[in-house]
């Protein structure tokens, strides 16, 4: 008989739950300020709301070819530097890399007409030029994350001469694999109506969408599980860091959102062809740089097949990939990821720089 709970045991569980919740509230009040990133950095360039930051490692970089990390517009980039012992940034610095990162900032109503052309051929291009100038280099390394990986691919396709090596992490290339839930949902949405109505798309709306990918786990079970461990102050603080990041969702500049959703999710133009950004044709076959493609096997946002298809989609003769047994976030924050991902990227970049 599977169902064997005694009433007194049920009451005992409930009692324990309430005790943990009360203790947790006490600990929660003592959590204090939650940082947004842990590695020291300097801002080396600013334009509108964008900041280009350079991380300061404990030792000088051994690779003289800097790497620029391009994060997504959704969520904030401190996921890559979430806590002392869970930091992709720190891992890359330790691997001898000179690490820069584009922080896109928080768009407001005045940014609603920012297009992908503004983001890529404006902001990102200026960041690349700034780093090239600082280091006296013709080309630098680029590392794109998720949507930032898509941007990196598009940018490299348009400006191949400025990119020496390209790393993509959890980056969708085929937006219409059969297991892509986000893509499936968006096919019946009137994106023009959405953007014309809202202007910028609220971060809350995107959050709602992402949480609905696994609603029972992400909006329920996770919090119940947290009650079990919130007696431990450090675990609670780590949980709160993640919680802060998850709900720290910038609004999306309307026009860029319109272009991205229609061209990539609805029409899959990055893979199928016909993509135009500004006056530039974006053709993956224009990419000749060495590519290191890193993806997660249990990624519920970007299915691994959406990334794998990059193999053969470009003209690069030096393509490698790394498949990580974890999820979309775990690839940055799990203990296992710290030991494998940044060292592997660092070694790959150093070998080719």
């Amino acid at each position: 008989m599977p169902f064997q709970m005694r009433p007194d045991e049920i009451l005992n569980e409930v009692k324990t739950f309430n005790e943990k919740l009360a203790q947790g509230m006490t600990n929660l009040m003592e959590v204090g300020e939650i940082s947004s990133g842990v590695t020291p950095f300097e801002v080396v360039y600013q334009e509108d709301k964008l900041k280009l930051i350079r991380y300061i490692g404990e030792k000088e970089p051994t690779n003289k070819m800097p790497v620029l990390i391009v994060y997504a517009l959704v969520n904030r980039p401190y996921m890559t530097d979430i806590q002392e012992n869970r930091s992709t940034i720190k891992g890359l610095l330790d691997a001898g890399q000179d690490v820069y990162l584009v922080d896109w900032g928080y768009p407001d109503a005045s940014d609603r007409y920012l297009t992908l052309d503004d983001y890529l051929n404006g902001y990102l291009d200026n960041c690349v030029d700034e780093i090239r100038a600082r280091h006296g280099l013709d080309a630098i390394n680029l590392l794109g994350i998720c949507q930032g990986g898509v941007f990196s691919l598009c940018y490299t396709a348009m400006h191949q001469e400025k990119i020496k090596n390209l790393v993509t992490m959890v980056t969708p290339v085929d937006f219409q694999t059969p297991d892509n839930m986000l893509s499936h949902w968006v096919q019946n949405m009137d994106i023009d109506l959405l953007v014309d109505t809202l202007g910028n798309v609220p971060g809350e709306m995107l959050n709602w969408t992402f949480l609905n990918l696994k609603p029972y786990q992400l909006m329920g079970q996770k919090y119940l599980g947290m009650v079990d461990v919130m007696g431990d102050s450090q675990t609670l603080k780590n949980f709160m860091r993640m919680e802060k990041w998850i709900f720290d969702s910038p609004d999306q500049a309307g026009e860029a959102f319109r272009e991205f959703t229609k061209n990539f999710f609805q029409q899959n133009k990055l893979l199928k062809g016909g993509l135009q950004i500004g006056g530039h044709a974006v053709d993956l076959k224009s990419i000749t740089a060495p590519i290191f493609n890193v993806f997660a096997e249990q990624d519920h946002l970007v299915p691994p097949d959406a990334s794998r298809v990059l193999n053969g989609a470009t003209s690069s003769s030096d393509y490698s990939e790394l498949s990580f047994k974890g999820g979309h976030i775990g690839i940055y924050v799990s203990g296992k990821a710290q030991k494998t991902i940044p060292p592997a990227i660092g070694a790959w970049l150093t070998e080719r720089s």
Partner: protein
Amino acid sequence: MVMDAWSDNMMKSWSDAQKRYWDAWSELANMGKPGSPVMPNIGASAWPQGLDQWWKAVSQYSAPGASTDAFQRMVDMGKVYMNLAENAYNVQRAGTSGTEAMNAWMDAMESGFRACCTQLEAGKYTAHGFGIGQAAMDSWQRVLNSMGMQAFQQMGAGGFHMPLSENWHEQLRKMLDTPAVGFNRESQERLQDLTQLGANYQEAMDDYLEAFAKQGIESVTALRARVASLREDGKKISTLRELYDLWVDVNEEVYGKFAMTDEYQVVYGDLVNALMAFKQGINAELDSAYEAANLPTRKDLNAAFQKQQEIRRENRALRKQLQELARKVDAMSAGSASTAPEQLPVSVTDGGSDADDNQASAKPKAPRAASKKPAASA
């Protein structure tokens, strides 16, 4: 986040009270172990309500913030858990066998979802009764908040439904078909159009919820199959938490399949599209009011933002041209310096940056006009 009124003493008092409360329940339950004469009965929703009341008392001493939000979610989920506990407790205390108790619990859940479907099909809105999926339903309200539509949350809670009418669609259609006449004819027509958009959103919301309720029924069916499988394998569910985790697992699995169906694609898209159309109608009405008051409208602001973006682009292009010119001038200066001793004047500066460096340089120039270098660190 904590205000002065909050103190450790208060927390301790609450903890002690909680302990006494649950100890008392446990003692009663021990008395009521199988074979004992007494089994305490619980009033409807007593446990979730207890947690809710505690949170209401505590949260007034906390300022809004990430911690409070997270704790609110824990408490919300705690209430769902308490509800599950209460149901499990009540079926067990009835003294039935494990199988009967489990079946009774699953029957009750299935009835709940069927009741949701029946209500929605009858045109009576319900946003409750979704069990552990309730958080997903409730989070939609946060989306409305983020769009400044707090005042219209009731749209998703029966706003256009007429609870006393069995045929609200028909009643509403008659109202909307009434010809607008008189001095305010145009205004009446606009409001009728807006009402229609609101009704469309209500319908889309109903369809979305009904699809979810149907999925709830499927989840119960899947749970029955999973329980049967556990029975065959000789496995047991001996804690409330195991039951909860199993229920989440089954729900997620059923939802995962449902979310990839054409049906979900349609109800999801229709919900968002209907909300946007409704909001666009509201925006237009607001703009009319602003215009009448000689205030800037959304349209005016958008025109200004669009112009601003065009100017940004022009500036960016000009900066690039200036950099190119500066680079050429630098190169010319260096060339001249090698043949003539005097330096060329700097013709282009970009914000006092390194354009006054007359050294020839093959390296690319950065877009300094926009750059500032404030010291910052993590």
